[in-house]
C-alpha cells in the first residue's frame, strides 16, 4: 500500500498527574493515518481513545504529562511545537467534532454567526499576514541579490539594477493590487447584491411580507458600487437599463406602500412591510441573471496587466476581452521585465543555496556535538542552555531564507529542544522528592503492617520519569533535524534553481492575492448558507438566523460539522459524534460524514464504542484497551478474523439481529491505571488468559502485513484456542449474507 501518510503517531505516552498518583492513560501507542481514509479507534470508556484525540488536537487537560513519543503532521511534532504554531493548525488543518453537539455550540449566539465567526476572523488575520510576508520576502530577495552580486561582479547586473528591479516589482504589484482591489470590490458588491436579491426572492416565494422599498434601495446602492471598468466592461449598458427598471419598480412599490399606509393608519398598523409585486420579482430575477453572468466571466490576470498599466499609466485594457488582454500583457511583461528579473533572481537563489548548504554542513557538525554532549549526561543547566542556544543558532542559519516552503522541522526545532531540556531539569529537581516521599510512605505502611494493624490505604506510586528516557527524547529531537539536513545535503545535486525562482514569484503573488481577498459579512453569510446546504440542512436561509435550541439533535450535529468544515481541514477527528443520537439520525450523520470524506478527500479519525457504526465507517480499525492498542487491522480483518480476546469479547457482548443465545458479557471492570498491570491488561477479565499473560506484556504479532494483534495466543508455542461460538456463528452468517447480498 503506497498511500500518503497524513498523520503519524509514534510511541505516544500520555499520563495525568492526580492526587492518587500518576494515571497512565495512553501507554505507548503508534498508528498512521493515510490520506482519504477513516481510521476507527474502538474501546470502552477509559481506554484512552479520547485522550489520544485530544493530544492530537493539542487540547489535553492541564494536568497531563507527555512522557514520550511524537505526533507527526506535515513534518512537525504536534506535541512539541509552540502554541502559536499549533493555533495555526487547530481548526484550520485538523478539526474536531465532539460527542455532545449542544455543549459544543454557544447557546446565545445565532447559528449563522457561529459558522461565519471563524471565517471572518481568519480572513482579517490572513490579510495582515499576507502584507507582512510579502514585504519581508521581497526585502530578503533584494538583500540576497546584492550579496550575490558583490561576490560575483561579472554577472552583468549592478547593485543599482537590483534596486530598480525590486522597486519595479513592488510598484507593479501595488498597481496590480489596486486594480484587483477595485475589480474585487465590484465583484463583492455584485455578490452582496445577489445575496440581498436571493433574500427578497426567498421571502416573496414563501408569501412572507418584506420591506420591499428598503431592500430595493439597498440593491440600488449595491448596483451603484459595481463600477469597476474591468468588471463591467461588457455590461455597462445592461446595468444602466437595470438601474432604470429598478427605479420604476421602486416608485410603484412606494406608491403601493403609500396607499396601504393611509389605509392602515386608520387601523394603527405598520404598512412598510408588504408582499412583493410580480413586476418587482421579474425585474429582480433579470438582475440576478445578469449578475450571475458577470460573476462567471473569465477573470483578468491583474499580475500581468498591473505591469502594463504601471508602465503605461494611461492605457485602458478593459476594452479588450479578458483572454486577449491577458495574452498581450504577458508578452509585454516577459519581454520587458520578467526574463531579466528571473535571471537576476536565479543568481541570488543559487548564491543563497550554496551558502546554506555550507551552513547545513556546519549545522550537522554542531548537531552531532550536541548529541554527544547530551548523551554523555552530567551537564549543568547553564551548559545545557548554552548548548541549546548555539545549536539552535547554527540550525537557524542553515535555513535557506529564499526557500518559500518553510522547513518546519528546523523551524520549530529550537523551541522543542528548549522545552525538553527544561523538562529534564524539572525531572532532576522533582524526582528525588518523589522518591523520598515514596520511601517514607512505604516504610510507614510496612511498620504498621509489622505491628499487625490493617492498613486500608495504598502507597501512592512514584510519578517519576526516568532522566535517561528524557535524554533519549532530547536526542531524538536533535536526530530528526540531523536526518533532515543529511537528506537535504544528499539531495543538493538535484537542486533546480529555475523551479525555486518560479516558486518565489508564485509565493509573492499568492501573498499579494491574500491581501486583496476580502471577505465581507454578506459573502460570509452566503458561504455559510452554502455550507449548511452541503451538510443537509433544509431551508438554510431561514435556519441561518435561528438559535441552537431551535434545532433538533441531528441538526445541531450537522451545524457542528459545518463549523468544523468551514476552514477546509485535512483531518477530521470525530469523537463519538453519534452516541447522543438515535438510529435514524445516526444513519443520516454517518452517511453525511462518509459523503464529505469522499468529496473533500478528508482523513478521518473516528472514535466510538459502537461496533455497528465502526463497520459502516472504518477502513481500518484500532482496538484500544487500557491505553494500549491491542489489535490493529483493516475493517474486514478485524471483523472476520479477530485475534485478540478483547476484540472477541467486544464482538460477542453485543447482540445482532439473529442472536438468540445468552450474551457473553465481559466480567469485571477495566484496571485502575494508577497501578497498571504488569502483564496483559486484559488478562484479569479474559477467560482465555495464559499464565504468561499475568507476567509479561505480549508484543505485537503480525497476522498479515496490515493486521497486528498483541496477544500471547499468537505465539507459536501457545495452545490453540477456539473462537467463541457466538462469533464463529456470526461470521458464518455474515459470509453467507455477503455471498448473496443481492437479496438484501
Amino acid at each position, binding site marked *: 500500500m503506497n498511500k500518503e501518510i497524513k498523520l503519524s503517531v509514534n510511541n505516544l505516552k500520555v499520563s495525568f498527574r492526580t492526587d492518587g498518583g500518576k494515571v497512565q492513560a495512553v501507554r505507548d501507542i503508534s498508528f498512521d493515518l493515510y490520506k482519504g481514509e477513516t481510521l476507527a479507534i474502538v474501546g*470502552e*470508556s477509559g481506554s484512552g481513545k479520547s485522550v489520544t484525540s485530544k493530544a492530537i488536537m493539542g487540547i489535553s487537560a492541564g494536568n497531563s504529562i507527555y512522557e514520550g513519543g511524537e505526533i507527526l503532521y506535515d513534518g512537525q511534532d504536534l506535541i512539541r511545537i509552540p502554541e502559536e504554531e499549533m493555533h495555526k493548525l487547530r481548526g484550520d488543518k485538523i478539526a474536531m467534532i465532539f460527542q455532545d453537539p449542544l455543549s459544543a455550540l454557544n447557546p446565545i449566539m445565532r447559528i449563522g454567526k457561529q459558522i461565519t465567526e471563524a471565517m471572518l476572523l481568519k480572513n482579517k488575520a490572513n490579510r495582515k499576514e499576507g502584507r507582512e510576508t510579502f514585504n519581508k520576502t521581497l526585502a530578503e530577495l533584494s538583500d540576497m541579490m546584492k550579496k550575490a552580486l558583490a561576490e560575483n561582479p561579472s554577472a552583468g547586473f549592478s547593485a543599482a539594477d537590483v534596486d530598480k528591479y525590486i522597486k519595479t516589482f513592488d510598484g507593479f504589484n501595488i498597481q496590480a493590487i489596486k486594480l484587483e482591489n477595485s475589480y474585487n470590490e465590484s465583484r463583492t458588491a455584485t455578490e452582496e447584491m445577489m445575496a440581498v436579491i436571493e433574500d427578497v426572492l426567498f421571502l416573496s416565494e414563501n408569501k412572507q411580507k418584506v420591506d420591499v422599498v428598503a431592500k430595493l434601495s439597498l440593491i440600488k446602492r449595491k448596483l451603484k458600487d459595481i463600477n469597476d471598468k474591468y468588471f463591467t466592461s461588457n455590461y455597462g449598458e445592461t446595468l444602466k437599463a437595470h438601474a432604470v427598471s429598478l427605479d420604476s419598480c421602486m416608485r410603484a412599490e412606494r406608491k403601493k406602500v403609500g396607499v396601504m399606509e393611509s389605509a392602515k393608519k386608520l387601523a394603527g398598523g405598520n404598512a412598510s412591510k408588504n408582499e412583493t409585486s410580480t413586476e418587482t420579482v421579474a425585474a429582480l430575477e433579470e438582475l440576478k441573471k445578469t449578475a450571475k453572468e458577470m460573476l462567471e466571466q473569465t477573470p483578468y490576470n491583474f499580475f500581468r496587466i498591473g505591469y502594463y498599466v504601471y508602465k503605461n499609466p494611461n492605457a485602458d485594457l478593459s476594452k479588450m476581452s479578458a483572454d486577449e488582454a491577458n495574452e498581450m500583457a504577458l508578452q509585454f511583461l516577459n519581454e520587458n521585465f520578467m526574463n531579466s528579473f528571473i535571471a537576476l533572481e536565479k543568481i541570488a537563489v543559487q548564491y543563497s543555496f550554496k551558502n546554506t548548504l555550507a551552513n547545513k554542513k556546519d549545522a550537522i557538525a554542531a548537531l552531532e556535538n550536541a548529541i554527544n554532549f547530551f548523551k554523555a549526561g552530567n551537564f549543568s543547566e547553564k551548559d545545557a542552555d548554552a548548548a541549546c542556544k548555539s545549536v539552535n543558532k547554527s540550525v537557524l542559519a542553515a535555513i535557506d531564507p529564499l526557500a518559500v516552503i518553510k522547513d518546519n522541522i528546523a523551524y520549530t526545532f529550537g523551541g522543542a529542544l528548549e522545552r525538553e531540556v527544561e523538562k529534564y531539569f524539572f525531572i532532576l529537581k522533582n524526582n528525588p522528592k518523589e522518591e523520598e516521599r515514596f520511601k517514607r510512605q512505604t516504610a510507614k505502611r510496612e511498620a504498621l503492617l509489622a505491628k499487625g494493624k490493617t492498613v486500608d490505604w495504598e502507597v501512592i506510586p512514584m510519578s517519576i520519569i526516568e532522566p535517561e528516557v528524557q535524554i533519549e527524547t532530547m536526542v531524538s529531537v536533535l536526530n530528526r533535524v540531523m536526518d533532515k539536513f543529511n537528506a537535504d545535503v544528499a539531495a543538493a545535486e538535484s537542486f533546480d534553481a529555475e523551479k525555486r525562482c518560479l516558486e518565489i514569484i508564485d509565493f509573492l503573488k499568492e501573498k499579494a492575492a491574500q491581501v486583496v481577498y476580502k471577505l465581507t459579512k454578506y459573502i460570509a453569510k452566503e458561504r455559510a448558507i452554502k455550507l449548511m446546504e452541503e451538510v443537509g440542512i433544509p431551508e438554510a436561509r431561514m435556519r441561518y438566523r435561528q438559535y441552537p435550541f431551535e434545532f*433538533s*439533535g441531528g441538526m445541531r450535529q450537522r451545524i457542528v460539522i459545518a463549523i468544523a468544515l468551514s476552514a477546509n481541514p485535512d483531518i477530521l477527528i470525530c469523537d463519538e459524534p453519534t452516541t447522543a*443520537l*438515535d*438510529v*435514524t*439520525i*445516526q*444513519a*443520516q450523520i*454517518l*452517511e453525511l460524514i462518509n459523503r464529505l470524506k469522499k468529496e473533500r478527500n478528508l482523513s478521518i479519525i473516528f472514535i466510538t*464504542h*459502537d*461496533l*455497528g*457504526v*465502526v*463497520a*459502516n465507517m*472504518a477502513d481500518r480499525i484500532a482496538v484500544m484497551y487500557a491505553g494500549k492498542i491491542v489489535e490493529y487491522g483493516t*475493517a*474486514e480483518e478485524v*471483523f472476520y478474523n479477530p485475534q485478540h480476546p478483547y476484540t472477541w*469479547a*467486544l*464482538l460477542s*457482548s*453485543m*447482540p*445482532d*439481529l439473529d*442472536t*438468540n443465545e*445468552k*450474551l*457473553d*458479557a*465481559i*466480567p469485571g*471492570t477495566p484496571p485502575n491505571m494508577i497501578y497498571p498491570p504488569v502483564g496483559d491488561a486484559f488478562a484479569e477479565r479474559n477467560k482465555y488468559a495464559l499464565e504468561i499473560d499475568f507476567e509479561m506484556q505480549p508484543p505485537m504479532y503480525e497476522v498479515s502485513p496490515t493486521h497486528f494483534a498483541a496477544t500471547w495466543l499468537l505465539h507459536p508455542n501457545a495452545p490453540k484456542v477456539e473462537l467463541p461460538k457466538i462469533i464463529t456463528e*456470526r461470521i458464518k452468517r*455474515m459470509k453467507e*449474507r*455477503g455471498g448473496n*447480498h443481492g437479496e*438484501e
Partner: protein
Amino acid sequence: MEKNNEVLLKVDHLCQYFRLGHKDMKAVDDVSFEIHKGESFGLVGESGCGKTTTGRSIIKLYDITSGNIYFKGQRIGAGTRSYKDAITAARADAAKKIKLLNTEKKAGYQEEIKKVQEERDAVIAQNRALIRDAKSDSKEVDKQYQESLLKDLETEYAEKFKAAGADSVKLAALKKEYRTRCRVAKKSKLITQIQMIFQDPIASLDPRMTVRDIIAEGLVINGITDKDYINEKVYEILETVGLVREHADRYPHEFSGGQRQRIGIARAIVMQPEMIIADEPISALDVSIQAQVINLLNELRESLGLTIMFIAHDLSVVKYFSDRIGVMYFGKMVELADSDELFKNPLHPYTKSLLSAIPLPDPVYEKQRTRIHYNPIAEHDYSVDKPSFREITPGHFVQCNDAEEEKYRKQIK
C-alpha cells in the same frame, strides 16, 4: 418461554397532550396495545416520538389526557378529555341546529328544538357519568386493592390463629404480626406493582443517599418500619442484582456506570413488582457493561417472572430482548407484531426505514447497505380515507387505511 395469554396491562386509546402556548403538543396520540403476563414488550422509535411519555403515562407520572389504562383488569388511569370534548361538540352541534331551526321557522319547529335539546342533554349526561366514573375509578382503585389485600390477610391469619390455638404467647406474636401487615396493606397502592428503571443511572440516583436508603425508600414509604426486615431485604436484593452486601453503605458516586444501573434495577425490584418499565436502561452505558445489564434483566425476568416493557432505540438490542415489538412514530403506534415477524415482514414504510438504518458489525454488508428514506407526505394519502390501527395477520397490527390494508395483505402472502 411458553405463551401466556393473560393480559396484564392494557392501554386503550391513550392520549397524552402537553400544553404548548395555545396549542396542544400531541406527545402520545391514540395508542392502544396489550402486554401479556411474563412477556417482554419492546417499544422503539426515534427520539421525541413519545416512547418515554407512554411509559411515564402508564406509571401515572403524568395525568393522562384521555384513554384508559387497565392493570390486572382494573382501571388505574383514565383521561377525561375525550368526554369533555364530546360534551363541547354536542353543545356546539345543538346550538347550530337550533339556530338553523329558529331562522327557518318551519311548522312545528318548537318541538324540533325541544327534541334537539333533549338529545344534547342526554349526551352530556352520559359523558358526565363517564367522567365521574373515570375520576372515581382512579381514586377507588387503591382502596379496592387495599381491601382485597386486607381480605387475603384476614383469611390467611384466621387459619394461623386457629392453628395457634390456646398458646397465648404465640397468639400474641401472631396478632402483632397481623397488625403490622394490615398497616402495610392499608398503605399499599396498586401502582407500586409497576416499577420503572430510568435511562440515566447518574441522574436518577440521589447523590446524598446511601445505596441502602435508595433501595429501602420504597419499603419505608409503604409503611414498613422493621429495620432488620428492611436490611435483610436490601441485602437480598443487592445479591440478586450482582452486587455485594458491603455496597449498601456506599454512595452512588462510588460506583461505576454498570453498577449504578444495577442499583436502579434493585430499587425497582425491591417492591416485588409484577411489571417493570425499562426506559432505555442501557443507552447511557458502555459497550461491555450493556451486555451485563441485558443479561441481568433477562435473568430477573426468568427468576421473578417479571413482565418487562422495554423502551429503547437500539433495534438489535430490542430484537434480542423482546417477544413483541411496537414501533412508534410521532406519537402514534404505526406497527405492532411479534419481534421475529416484525423483522421478517415489516409492513409500514416507517418500520422499513427504521430497520434499514440498523448498523451491524459486518463491514462488507455495511458498506453496501442502503437506507430507505421515509417521507410520510409522499408515502400516504390520508386526505380522504383516514387511517386506523388494523390487524393484518393474527398479532400483526399496522396503522393504515383501506387501500393500504389491501396492499399489505397482498404483500404478506
